[in-house]
C-alpha cells in the first residue's frame, strides 16, 4: 500500500545519523522531526537564523521573535544558536548541513528539481529552496510519485521551471525510494505491498529495476 505522509517521513528518518545537522523543508519534511530514532541526537537548522530548532511553544512561552523558516512560532533547544540570514546561508551554501529534506513538484533523471513555480499560478518566490538544493551534498526529496490524474512527476526531464540543476540524488515517494545516478532512477525500495509494476507504471523516467527490490521498513 502507498505510504502515508507520516510513513514517508518515517522512512526518511531512517537516513538520519547521530550528530547530523539537518534542514527540513515545509510539508512532509517537517514531519521527519517526529521520527528521529530513540536516543539519536539531531540538530535542526532553520534558514531564517536558528540552529537547534525545538518543538512548538506553549501559549505561555510563545515568542514572536522566535520563528522558523515557515514563519511558525517555535522554540530553541539547549545548545542552540541564533545568527543572521547571511550566516545561515553560509552554512547551507558552504555544505555544512549534513542532510536536507525537501519537497518537489517534479524531479528528473538528470537530478534536476522543480519545486517553486507553476507557470500560470501566482509566483511567490523560491525562498531558500534554490540555496538549499545548490548547497547541500546530501538531499532527500519527498514527493508524490504522480499527480491525482496519474501523471508521473518522476520524469525524464522536468517540465516546470527548475529550482536546481543536477543536484538531486535521492527521492522518496509514497511508492518508492529511488536513487538518481548515471542519468536514470534506480529503484532501491518499494512501499510495503506495492509492486514494481505499479511503480514502473507511474514513472515516466528511465527506471533501473534490480532483480530484487526490498520493501521499505516503516
Amino acid at each position, binding site marked *: 500500500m502507498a505510504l502515508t505522509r507520516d510513513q514517508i517521513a518515517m522512512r526518511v528518518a531512517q537516513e538520519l545519523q547521530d550528530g547530523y545537522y539537518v534542514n527540513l523543508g515545509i510539508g512532509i519534511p517537517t514531519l521527519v522531526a517526529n521520527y528521529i530514532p530513540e536516543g539519536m541526537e539531531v540538530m535542526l537548522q532553520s534558514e531564517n537564523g536558528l540552529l537547534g530548532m525545538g518543538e512548538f511553544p506553549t501559549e505561555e512561552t510563545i515568542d514572536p*521573535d522566535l520563528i522558523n523558516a515557515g514563519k511558525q512560532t517555535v522554540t530553541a533547544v539547549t545548545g542552540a544558536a541564533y545568527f543572521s*540570514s547571511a550566516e545561515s546561508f553560509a552554512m547551507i551554501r558552504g555544505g555544512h548541513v549534513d542532510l536536507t529534506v525537501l519537497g518537489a513538484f517534479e524531479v528528473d533523471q538528470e537530478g534536476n528539481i522543480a519545486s517553486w513555480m507553476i507557470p500560470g499560478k501566482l509566483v511567490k518566490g523560491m525562498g531558500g529552496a*534554490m540555496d538549499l538544493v545548490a548547497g547541500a551534498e546530501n538531499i532527500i526529496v519527498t514527493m508524490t510519485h504522480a499527480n491525482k490524474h496519474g501523471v508521473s512527476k518522476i520524469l525524464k526531464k522536468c517540465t516546470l521551471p527548475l529550482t536546481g540543476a543536477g543536484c538531486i540524488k535521492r527521492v522518496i515517494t509514497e511508492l518508492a525510494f529511488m536513487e538518481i545516478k548515471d542519468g536514470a532512477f534506480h529503484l532501491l525500495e518499494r512501499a510495503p505491498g506495492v509492486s514494481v509494476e505499479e511503480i514502473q507504471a507511474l514513472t515516466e523516467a528511465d527506471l533501473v529495476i534490480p532483480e530484487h527490490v526490498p520493501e521499505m521498513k516503516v
Partner: protein
Amino acid sequence: MSGFNKVVTSYEEALAGFTDNMTVMVGGFGLCGIPEGLIEQVNKLGSTGLTAISNNAGVDGFGLGKWLEKRQISTMIGSYVGENELFEKLLLSGEMEVILTPQGTLAEKIRAGGAGIPAFFTATGYGTDVANGKETREIDGRHYVLEPSLTADFALVKAWKADTMGNLIFRKTAMNFNPMMATAGKITVAEVEEIVEPGELDPNYIHTPGIYVQRVIKGQFEKRIEQRTVKPSHQES
C-alpha cells in the same frame, strides 16, 4: 559636541532625506524583526517609485503590505513575496516589477554590498531562470552564477537594543536580514526596543558595530505573528 550620539526622537528625523524613487532595504523575515514604525513613516510620507529590498513583502495591511496599498513600490526585490492578495494584483497589472532572488543569494548580495564586494559567484540558481542573463562559470568542476551586490539609499532595520552610538544587538530570529542591511545602506536607520548608554552593551557581543548606523530611534512594536503554532500547555515533553 555629540559626534556619536545617533539618537533621533521623531520618525520625521529618522527618515529625513527619504525621497521618491529611492532604493530602500527593509529588515525582517516575514513579520518577524521588521522596523514597524519606520515602515509606517515611509507609508505616511507617501514616497513612490521605491525599489524595496526585503525578503518578504508583508501581509495585507501590515508591514510592506501598507506600501503596496499606497502603490509606493515600483520594484520589489525579495525571495518570497505575495503573502497578500494585493501583491498579486499589482504584479499582474504591471504596476510593480518583482525580482525574485534566492534567499541566501539575497542575503549574500546585501552583505557583499555592505562589504565593498561588487560581485561574487554562487552555485545557487545555476541552471534555473535565476541565472538568465547572468554570467556563469565552471570552477573546479561545479557551475556558478555571478551575482552583483546590492546597496541602498536607506536601510531600515529593527534591532532589540542599541546604545546611543548605534551599536546594535538583535534578539533570536528577529535578527535575520537586519545585520547585513545595516551595513548596506548609505543611511542606516535602526528602530529598536530599547536605547541604552554606551558601555551597557558588552563590546564582545555587539552584532552590528555603530560605524554602520547613522540614526537610532526607539519604537513601539506590535510584533504580529503570522503562523501562531503552539502545543498544549500541559504537554511537557
